[in-house]
């Protein structure tokens, strides 16, 4: 447990395997495995390839949002706007392609640019003015939410052209069908996990989160780094928007209303500290899966939805408690 202090020097080195074995990912991983074991014994349907494929499909949208959220929380920030920005991006993509005359790929690109733009704007406000991330993204949540409803005229966009939903299609793997979107999410997790642990950029992100002032004095261009992180997060929300469309087959202005909190839940369950500088996107992947496994498993057992919420709440509080206690110990 004491290894969780994350001194700067240690952050450069660890391999993926070692990082998984050291806290703070150990706890979440153990919780995930325990939950899987429990549900495997409790229901016949849980332990099947099809069911696991399903869980990954169900969590891919929030999972992709949670990657961006992890990056921002690692800098000791927070992003309340991610669900709303994604919803706006999805409406832009859907409307441009279905009702506008844009070719689908161009509509997707436009959606990514719009979401990236929101991220850039968040970053600029946080860094240049500077304003607290909580406030900036709270404001941006309302801006994006309103724009979504104004632009969509409260109407669900249907009849989407094929390329928009291509990521929702499946290919067989053994006896199981996997969606392409699941692969995109997993690839993004691996890409960002690699970037955080094996590149200079990643080390700078951790250093910034541990102490922005120390990072700056060490010659890290913290301003550019922060703005970059928010922009990358925005782009990830754009990809989540595309995944959302591909999953539901419509552009829905009501979408994403609780996804900001769901993404924060996943980050916290994955062992990333809300105080910044400590955690990993692989942890977040585990956090996302914990929520997905509980929802799926309890439903398979026939437990009412409200208990899923209850258990998620208890797990979040436990996760933060573990984080706090290990911090105290480290001091």
């Amino acid at each position, binding site marked *: 447990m004491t290894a969780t202090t994350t001194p700067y020097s240690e952050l450069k080195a660890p391999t993926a395997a070692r990082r998984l074995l050291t806290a703070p990912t150990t706890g979440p991983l153990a919780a995930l495995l325990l939950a899987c074991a429990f549900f495997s014994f409790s229901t016949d349907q849980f332990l099947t390839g099809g069911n696991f494929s399903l869980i990954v*499909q*169900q969590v891919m949208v929030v999972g992709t949002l949670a990657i961006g959220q992890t990056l921002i929380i690692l800098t000791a920030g927070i992003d309340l706007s991610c669900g709303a920005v994604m919803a706006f991006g999805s409406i832009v993509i859907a409307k441009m392609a279905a009702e506008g005359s844009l070719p689908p790929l161009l509509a997707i690109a436009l959606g990514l640019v719009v979401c990236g733009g929101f991220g850039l704007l968040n970053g600029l406000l946080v860094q240049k003015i500077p304003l607290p991330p909580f406030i900036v993204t709270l404001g941006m949540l309302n801006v994006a939410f309103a724009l979504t409803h104004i632009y969509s005229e409260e109407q*669900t966009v249907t009849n989407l052209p094929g390329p928009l939903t291509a990521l929702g299609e*499946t290919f067989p793997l053994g006896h199981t069908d996997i969606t392409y979107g699941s692969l995109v999410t997993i690839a993004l997790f691996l890409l960002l996990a690699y970037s955080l642990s094996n590149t200079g950029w990643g080390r700078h992100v951790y250093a910034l989160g541990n102490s922005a002032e120390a990072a700056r004095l060490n010659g890290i261009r913290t301003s550019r780094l922060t703005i970059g992180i928010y922009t990358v997060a925005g782009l990830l929300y754009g990809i989540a928007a595309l995944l959302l469309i591909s*999953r*539901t087959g419509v552009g829905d202005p009501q979408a994403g209303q609780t996804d900001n909190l769901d993404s924060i839940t996943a980050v916290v369950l994955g062992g990333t500290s809300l105080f910044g500088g400590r955690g990993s996107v692989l942890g977040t992947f585990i956090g996302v899966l914990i929520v997905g496994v509980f929802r*799926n498993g309890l439903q*398979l057992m026939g437990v*009412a939805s409200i208990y899923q919420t209850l258990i998620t709440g208890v797990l979040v509080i436990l996760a933060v408690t573990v984080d706090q206690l290990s911090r105290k110990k480290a001091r």
Partner: protein
Amino acid sequence: MSRTTRLSSSLLRAAAVTGVAALTLTACGSGSGSDSSSSGSGEVKVGLITKTDTNPFFVKMKEGAEKAAKENGAQLSTAAGKFDGDNAGQVTAIENMVAAGVKGILITPSDSKAIVPAIEKARAKGVLVIALDTPTEPESAVDALFATDNLKAGELIGEYAKAAMKGRTAKIAALDLAPGVSVGVQRHDGFLKGFGATEKDVACAQDTGGDQAKGQTAMENCLQKEPDINVVYTINEPAALGAYTALKAKGREKDVLIVSVDGGCTGTQAVKDGKIAATSQQYPLKMAAEGVKAVVSFAKDGKKASGYTDTGVTLISDKAQDGVDSKDTGYGLENCWG
């Protein structure tokens, strides 16, 4: 530097004083406004408070109220909660409307019980309060209720599903609304009653919040739990379309019967497209229009609307079943949320 600060702070103070004075004046104005509005412009003020102003159902309701207000020479003000369940927002809206001197308030309560004290205060000041779509608890907390009979809406699709199954053994999935929300409970119970089934016959039940993505997730999990589900009851058409997407992914969309309630234009189109077998159509535009008329007639001759008015429900399907009355989607699309 210090002078400018002092200057700007005194300016601020002056602005604040002016602002407070203006507010006091307008508050006084609106306080006496209830008298002047009846004698002055002659326009009856009507308030409409919906759960949200983003749900298409409530958008239609607003359209109906606006049209009826224009036709009856009334002045309509509208408000809504920020999200479904935003009781505090609705309470604020009631208070503001009473302060603005409305003759009557039409409200779709987000929280049937929690809104009651605020409604009682408004009624004590002589304001006519009519609940639209969703009853309050107790129902007598409002002067009148204009709503769909949700139990009947459920019964109709239950009867339809029973007939469409033609004696085959049913394995039912129920995609519900949320725990304890009366609309959802009534539709669910109505469906079972119409189908002649009991809670034990439901192989898989899950809350969806009436949301398409959640409906899809729920259906996927239900299929995982009980692969041979062949009848799906859904709280509304977004949930039904989510279920359809999940079934289609399994190649089951042809042999599973989906029935629903709501009758929105998108949902009725989905019935026409064969994604949903049948839906019970309700009429929010009519609820609001009749509500506005009731307030206007109350203002003119003091006659209060009372009790429950059923605004009607129609079974919409293109595959009519013997012994079950239904209208086709041509009728449905012409009247979708009319």
